[in-house]
């Protein structure tokens, strides 16, 4: 039986058609993956199923009954729950309290309900549900103390407690470590066995293959493929998704950089966080001209702090950074950029771009003191517009309104804008932190090719990423971070994923030359 059916759903935002005549059916008890490039309309479709927005035209049927959702509450009552990419939890409350937020159980006195919460009964009730679905949670822990993977579990529990049959997950694995991803997969399969229907949006082909029964592929607001997972493969899905052939592996030219000089060097860099705990200890790395140094590691092992130090957002308490023979330790970001270092920040909407400012204003950010951008304290907006037109053409950035704000850009185009900005000044070194995070296959390919181009021109690259395949395919040398230290360094051409994976888990062996 089809649990959800959409008939001719169309959603328009002004002149933009986000969803164009979507006709889909979801079978009960299956796991369905939805893939597509950024801006393909996946989230728009899911938001309509969850009552966050309403279709411009078309109908939604649940168990062959027409429904109309005004708020997520309507959707929950109809049996649809959604877990967002960004969790909506109260950190200071316990897991149990978070799950029951809004549906608290009250003490029942002789004269009916009292305004006091019956926490004992609450706990029992929630425990019952967690046991039923075999979800491992310590209900009395506070949410602020638990890991991201557990928080996601709490979000899923919140929906299960409300008795939903259909669970929508928006990029559930984007924030998880590899181990947490595995745990999530087990959880979801358990739910499937209990008869729940699961829909998840993802960018990662490996998860589609591992987890889903069938997969929907979207492109530019349309459904372009609806296939059984067992009848297809990663290559085929990627091809349908972007409408052309994509190289999942990059073509990297071999460059003999062994004779070229060192351009960037870190000597014993250490730092403490605000609580006084040492989060980076004695980091020593070297980057040669024309070399990509990959820094791998499970998120949270000091990469964030390291990038902050390299880009001037945090000061080191010890050590030196030498760039091109100059000591640039603890310089301001603007000076670091001026010295010839390009920076791609990890969160493109937090540090990389400002959504509410125009494309013109964003395309010069960080370089706004250069004489071609501002003179005698005044911005040269005429020149900037010319520069923008040139870069938009050169980097194939798709914009509807060139004078408008950055918020109109999709993720891939926003990243292209950052790359255009940073590469245009011909940096001698590039620091890239998660440069393809959350991007679709086509955009990933673009970013990778641009980084390789830069390498060919003889620039050094520091690539920090938790995406192991990215590190493996791009880097010349790989340094692995664990617990604030470089635990090992390996030659990318002579290593394999298992060896790097071991290092990421903190296990060293003889083959890696420890520093």
């Amino acid at each position: 039986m089809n649990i959800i059916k959409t008939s001719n759903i169309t959603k328009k935002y002004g002149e933009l058609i986000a969803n164009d005549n979507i006709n889909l059916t979801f079978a009960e008890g299956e796991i369905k993956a939805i893939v597509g490039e950024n801006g393909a309309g996946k989230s728009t479709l899911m938001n309509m199923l969850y009552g966050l927005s309403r279709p411009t035209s078309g109908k939604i049927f649940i168990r062959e009954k027409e429904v109309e959702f005004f708020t997520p509450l309507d959707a929950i009552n109809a049996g649809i729950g959604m877990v967002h990419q960004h969790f909506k939890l109260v950190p200071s409350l316990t897991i149990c309290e978070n799950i029951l937020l809004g549906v608290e159980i009250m003490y029942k006195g002789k004269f009916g309900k009292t305004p006091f919460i019956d926490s004992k009964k609450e706990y029992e009730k929630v425990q019952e549900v967690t046991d039923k679905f075999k979800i491992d949670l310590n209900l009395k822990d506070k949410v602020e103390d638990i890991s991201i993977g557990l928080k996601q579990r709490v979000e899923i529990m919140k929906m299960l407690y409300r008795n939903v049959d259909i669970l929508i997950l928006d990029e559930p694995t984007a924030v998880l470590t590899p181990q947490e991803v595995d745990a999530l997969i087990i959880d979801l399969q358990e739910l499937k066995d209990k008869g729940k229907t699961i829909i998840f949006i993802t960018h990662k082909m490996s998860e589609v293959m591992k987890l889903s029964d069938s997969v929907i592929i979207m492109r530019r607001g349309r459904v372009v493929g609806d296939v059984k997972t067992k009848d297809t493969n990663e290559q085929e899905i990627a091809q349908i998704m972007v409408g052309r052939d994509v190289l999942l592996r990059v073509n990297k030219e071999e460059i003999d950089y062994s004779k070229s000089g060192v351009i960037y060097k870190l000597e014993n860099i250490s730092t403490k966080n605000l609580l006084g705990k040492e989060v980076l200890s004695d980091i020593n790395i070297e980057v040669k001209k024309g070399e990509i140094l990959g820094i791998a590691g499970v998120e949270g092992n000091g990469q964030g702090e390291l990038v902050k130090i390299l880009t001037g957002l945090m000061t080191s308490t010890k050590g030196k950074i030498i760039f091109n023979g100059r000591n640039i330790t603890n310089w301001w970001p603007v000076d670091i950029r001026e010295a010839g270092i390009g920076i791609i920040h990890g969160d493109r909407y937090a540090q990389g771009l400002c959504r509410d400012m125009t494309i013109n204003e964003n395309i010069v950010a960080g370089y706004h003191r250069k004489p071609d951008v501002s003179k005698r304290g005044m911005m040269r907006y005429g020149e900037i517009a010319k520069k923008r037109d040139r870069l938009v053409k050169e980097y194939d950035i798709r914009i509807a309104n060139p004078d408008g704000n950055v918020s109109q850009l999709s993720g891939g185009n926003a990243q292209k804008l950052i790359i255009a900005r940073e590469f245009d000044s011909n940096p001698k070194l590039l620091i890239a932190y998660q440069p393809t995070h959350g991007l679709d296959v086509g955009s990933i390919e673009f970013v990778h090719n641009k980084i390789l181009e830069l390498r060919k021109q003889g620039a050094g690259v520091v690539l920090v990423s938790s995406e192991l395949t990215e590190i493996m395919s791009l880097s010349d040398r790989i340094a692995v971070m664990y617990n604030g230290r470089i635990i090992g360094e390996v030659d990318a051409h002579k290593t394999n994923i298992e060896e790097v994976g071991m290092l990421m888990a903190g296990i060293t062996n003889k083959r890696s030359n420890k520093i």
Partner: protein
Amino acid sequence: MKKGKMFLLDIFNSLLPVLSAFGIGAIIIILIGGNPLTTYSIMFSKTLFNWNGFLKTLHFASPLILTGLAIAITFKANIFNMGVEGQLLVGGFFACVVGFYFEGLNPVVHVILGLLTGITCGMVFAFIPAILKAYFKVNEIVVTLMLNYAVIEILRILTQTIYRDPTSGYVSTPAVASSAMFYRIGGTRLTLFFPLTIIVFVIMYIIFKKSRLGYEVTAVGKNPEFAEASGMNIKRKIIYIMLISGALSGLAGAGYMFSEKFKYTLDFSGNPGLGWDGMLIALLGRHSPIGIIIAAIFYSALKTGGDIINIFTNVPKESVGVIQGLIILFISIRFINQNTKLFGNTMARFSTTKKKKNEEVQK
């Protein structure tokens, strides 16, 4: 949304609270026994559509434009200077001291000296919360707000003791020397303070739309993390913006002193003070420069209009105060509506249930 449509929405959003306030104001006037239509028409014909009245309105709009700007500018950097009132009082007071202390100076030198004193005092007073905010992360709203009361009391003590004019029958400082008074243009109420205000306004407009400082301040206001990652010194920007705001407030006080009041009394700034009026004007003008000018002139017409209806009708001038209060109230209602979807959703639900009911009835 398209730019033109946004612009219309902005205008609509600014007009609606004003119109609603006048609507309720009309009910109150009727209850008092007056005729709202004649009251309003007298008020606006004498303040906006009568040459001398209009010049008077412009004259009183000058300090309001400056205080409105002072607030709107800090808002751009996402900080809130609630101390415009205090900075204005300090600026006005010490400009007054310079005004009566020196005698026989060249008028141009004297006025400039007084205005510079006012500006400096305003800046010094804005510097305290600026430093606390930038380097010690102290909430600027609390500091600026509380400093207002400190300023008012200090100035009261100074006026009652060392700077008291013994010949005056009430608590006030001596009047400024005639060389420190602004030149009146063509014998009207309008003084050179108004063109000076317009010049300052144009300079501010250029700084915020075209300069690098304006660019960096916008970035700091919209996304501090991005601003820092792009190499902007946020602490320094906070201090600059507070100093500019303080300078504008101080100038407003000094200019008001030399063009209208001439001596510092305890009700120098009126009630509510010019600084608080500036806040309303910044909100009404939606923090845009042109909006602030229009809002300041309109608000000035409302203020001067109070006296006029007192003279020409039997409606008391306090009814204008009621309208001012209602405008503030309605502006905050608009804010709530902007930030929540609640209203929109209930409306959508309401309209469809109604539709369904109609369908059922037809069946």
